[in-house]
């Protein structure tokens, strides 16, 4: 059985069996409160016999995204099983089941969207990413038909993970898909305080 955990949008967890069927699933679409709900949702689906944990690596607003990844890693550590990073947009493309070229779009806050362009699925049954994930201004004209969602299916994420494992492929780095650098400015000279 494979457990998938994703907090790139709402909070979603699921367990699928060796045939790809959903054994248990729990989620909330709330784009905030990931830290509060992750434990109870995991407890709802956790069971013996899990062999891999799939971590949804985003893109997603910074703060929430990390909570699922952290929980996925420690859950795997607790069971002594591997954790496999998968970009979250693959789960959305998988669930969409669209055969042609299309754009998966999710909100990236600050009036921006995260865009990944897929074109059907490849020989391993994994959604075929044809343009790397990028940020666009909200309202920007996209060349592809848009599939925008505010929630994703952890079962679909688990399924992509299962296929990646079966094919021996790596779809994401260990580093989350942040897409933005931290908001920091190098300090200049100290400001004058005297009039």
């Amino acid at each position, binding site marked *: 059985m494979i457990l998938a955990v994703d907090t790139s949008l709402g909070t979603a967890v699921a367990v699928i069996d060796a045939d790809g069927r959903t054994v248990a699933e729990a989620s909330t679409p709330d784009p905030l409160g990931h830290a*509060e709900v992750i434990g*109870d949702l995991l407890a709802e689906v956790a069971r013996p016999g899990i062999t891999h944990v799939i971590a949804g690596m985003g893109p997603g607003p*910074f*703060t929430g995204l*990390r*909570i699922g990844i952290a929980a996925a890693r420690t859950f795997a550590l607790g069971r002594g099983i591997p954790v496999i990073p998968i970009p979250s947009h693959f789960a959305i493309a998988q669930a969409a089941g669209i055969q042609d070229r299309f754009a998966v779009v999710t909100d990236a806050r600050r009036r921006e969207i995260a865009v990944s362009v897929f074109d059907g699925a490849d020989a391993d049954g994994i959604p075929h990413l044809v343009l790397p994930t990028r940020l666009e201004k909200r309202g920007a004209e996209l060349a592809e038909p848009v599939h925008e969602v505010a929630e994703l299916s952890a079962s679909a994420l688990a399924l992509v993970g299962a296929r990646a494992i079966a094919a021996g492929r790596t779809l994401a780095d260990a580093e989350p898909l942040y897409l933005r650098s931290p908001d*920091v400015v190098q300090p200049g000279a100290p400001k004058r305080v005297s009039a």
Partner: protein
Amino acid sequence: MTTTEPLVLGIETSCDETGIGIVRGRTLLSNTIASSMDEHARYGGVVPEVAARAHLEALQPSIERALAEAEVTLDDLDAIAVTSGPGLAGALMVGVGAAKGLAVSLGKPLYAVNHLVGHIAADIVAGDAEPIEYPTIALLVSGGHTSLLHVRDLTTDVELLGETVDDAAGEAFDKVARLLGLPYPGGPQIDKAAVGGDPKAIRFPRGLAKASDLEKHRYDFSFSGLKTAVARWIERAEANGEEVPVADVAASFREAVVDVLVTKALAACQDRGVPRLLLGGGVIANRRLREVTLERAAAAGVTVRIPPLSLCTDNGAMIAGLAAELISSGRGASTLAFGADSTLPVTEIQVSPA
């Protein structure tokens, strides 16, 4: 679960240190700290997003290192503990997510605890010393907090007497270091620069120490006015074409910070009739602060306890230690519903008890 000497793993991510600690009751087995301090240096202070990213990277290897050092396995653990607050929200959340994942995976109880009270528990796991006596006044000074507490009982009764109304003392050190052209973190740099300086050369203001302020802010601290006073002093010297006497400025600034910290802490000891003072937080590394505290406390008949520095800075051992005390006193685990609370009040020693 063993309630007399529970084996607890603690996770601390409230600021820029990823701390994993393992204790068996009051015995420290591991205190593993991964710091992202170097990554913040060029920004002159802790950048929350940078800290949170670093926590995510450091957590798993740190847990593995702590287990290896303690020579225990995850299955051996009686409970997991985690800092729920106060601290940087995004940083805290990484620890909370990790702690929940681990607790659910292992089917072990989870204790969500207060970071500031954890600083007090640090002394319990410090080893050699006799058990800490209550009540005690506690002065916690770091880059993130400056708090004065009255601790009647570690697990049930902690009162906040006062805290900083603006910058934390550690922040003041960082900012004044920048004024003097010194790198981050400021504490050790100011210490170095102050060598040979005259602490009485310049009389910098003591924040919230005037009679009119003492009424409302007897135990509160303020360091932003002090920082401005130092800036003004340097600007005036430069405007007059004088060379800034860095050693004197550093020594005098440090003296102002230390003076107000020690004066207020000892006032609390006296007002509350508590002849014991516990120090905690990273700024305790400041040698002058320890010296002045010991000197003036001795004169006032107050006993001072200072845990080893590795337990004064933020760490997971103090979080594990606090949870072990909660378990020993019969307290049940937290529910899984808690989150990160960046302003968690010190009276909430355990968060979300069942």
